[in-house]
């Protein structure tokens, strides 16, 4: 008996958050809808809450010591591994970006390829930062004095909806040894969470990059006032709203920065802290 072959039903992906290397739903149970340019339903990603943010910070803090103490060579290899993983899934990202944002497929493709190249670029910085930002300081006395740059700790990122900027912000923060909680605006949710899958399958330790999708307006003020966040990249925040975040961040003198240009060591160094050590020199 011959039966007519039926069209296969797609298996759709459930989009969740990425916290401490796992993919939990929002504790709030909330989701939001992402649609394609033509209005077709794509997904119901998790709408992260302030408690998810809190959990992300906890995970990032726990991962901070290990990540910052990994050798620069090791961090560079892991960042390079992310590029490798991304390369293998380039087409997926191209189609997701093209599907959920307002840019053309051609542009989406170039963004993804650029993003891969960015990871390669940042990976190479891990063991060169000190050569560029450090110094030995010729003080007037019997002391060996040097300055090195260290990661600040936990850096929150309010990413803009642009995939390249999302990558720049994350890579610039983590290459030096910071751990991050990345707040992603809804329109970037689909490629951002696919990127989380890339991270999950690279060698990145859990908690180094935590990704929360949702509303920047809702989450950014909580990040700004969170006393266990050391730095905050607010490039994705509208200019008019930045002042309020900086004001809230003053409570622990958070280092809050927004960037015009993406690919720059300045962006890496902005979330590093210079440490100067004096040693007496004698016999």
């Amino acid at each position, binding site marked *: 008996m011959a039966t007519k072959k039926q069209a296969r039903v797609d298996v759709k992906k459930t989009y969740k958050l990425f916290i401490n290397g796992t993919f939990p739903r929002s504790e709030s149970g909330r989701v939001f809808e992402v649609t394609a340019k033509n209005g077709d339903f794509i997904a119901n990603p998790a709408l992260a809450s302030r408690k998810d943010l809190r959990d992300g910070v906890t995970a990032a803090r726990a991962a901070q010591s290990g990540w910052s103490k990994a050798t620069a060579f090791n961090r560079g290899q892991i960042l390079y591994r992310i590029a490798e993983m991304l390369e293998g899934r380039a087409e997926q990202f191209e189609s997701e970006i093209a599907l959920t944002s307002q840019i053309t497929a051609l542009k989406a493709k170039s963004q993804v390829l650029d993003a891969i190249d960015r990871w390669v670029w940042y990976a190479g910085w891990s063991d060169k930062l000190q050569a560029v930002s450090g110094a030995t300081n010729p003080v007037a*006395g*019997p*002391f060996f004095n040097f300055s090195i740059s260290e990661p600040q700790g936990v850096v929150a990122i309010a990413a803009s909806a642009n995939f390249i900027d999302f990558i720049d912000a994350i890579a610039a923060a983590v290459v030096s040894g910071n751990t991050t909680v990345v707040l992603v605006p809804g329109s970037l949710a689909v490629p951002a969470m696919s990127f989380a899958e890339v991270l999950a399958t690279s060698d990145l330790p859990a908690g180094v990059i935590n990704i929360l999708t949702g509303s920047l307006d809702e989450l950014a003020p909580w990040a700004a006032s969170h006393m266990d966040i050391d730095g905050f990249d607010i490039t994705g925040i509208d200019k008019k709203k930045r002042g309020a975040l900086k004001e809230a961040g003053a409570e622990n003198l958070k280092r809050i920065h927004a960037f015009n240009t993406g690919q720059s060591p300045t962006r890496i160094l902005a979330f590093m802290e210079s440490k100067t050590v004096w040693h*007496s*020199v*004698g*016999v």
Partner: protein
Amino acid sequence: MNFYGLIDGSEKSLVYFLNQLSGVDQVGAESRAAMLATRSIKTTSKKWAIETAISMVDLTTLEGADTPGKVRALCSKAVRPDPTDPTVPSVGAICVYNDMVEIARTHLDAIGGKHVPVAAVSTAFPSGRASMEVKIQDTQDAIDAGAAEIDMVIDRGAFLAGKYGLVFDEIVKIREVCGEKAHLKVIFETGELVTYDNVRKASYLAMLAGADFIKTSTGKVAPAATPPVVLVMLEAVRDFYTLTQRRIGVKPAGGIRTTKDAIKQLVLVNETAGPDWLTPQLFRIGASALLNDLLMQRMKMSDGYYASPNYVTID
């Protein structure tokens, strides 16, 4: 001997003791000494310091060209440093080679200087390169000739080679020769030990072995009694007192030529070991030219104008 109950006299116990001493940070020790050198000692305190320093001078001649005449002249100077002013105290001691001890002792006794002791450098001074028999004989000769103080040198070669037991045993033996008759000063030649860690180790080694005084230098090697070296030695005697309740004296020698240098030394004593050490029984300065500078500064203070070398006697 029980070595203050701190060690049993074996090299093993000595090395163990020396190795648990805390290190000395060169930069820190030198900056402390430099800071103390900024102390400004004026008016009444300067007058007191000058007179105290005079009473602490071990007036020294240690030349191949020393003659009885030279030594007698020095003795006269030692008893009455300023012949025009009897209120100036006699110096702490006369310091000579052992063949000059008898001449010095006899002359001092003859000119009313019975209270001025004679110190003899000993143990094949200044290099210390001789057999133990010779070193013992050297010391015995000096004591027999009337020396009340023995300034022995340690075997720096043995010290630098890590043979602490050898250095220790030599001091113990010389201490035995000195017996009750002579005070023992142990010279490290810090300019050859080089590091402050070595100076600290040598200080404890000598104190444990029975030294009455620890002394920086022979005067034949530079650098000699630099303020940080003296600082480290003063810390050692201070801490040794805490351990044993016995006060050991300190004698910087070599390179202290001016009143300013001498006052710096007294400030070091005052603020490191403490005022208890500000007595000729516990602090001496080995010097020759220093005495006249002290006398000139003293004249300036009493007369109100600057002195000239023509008004102080040469040796």
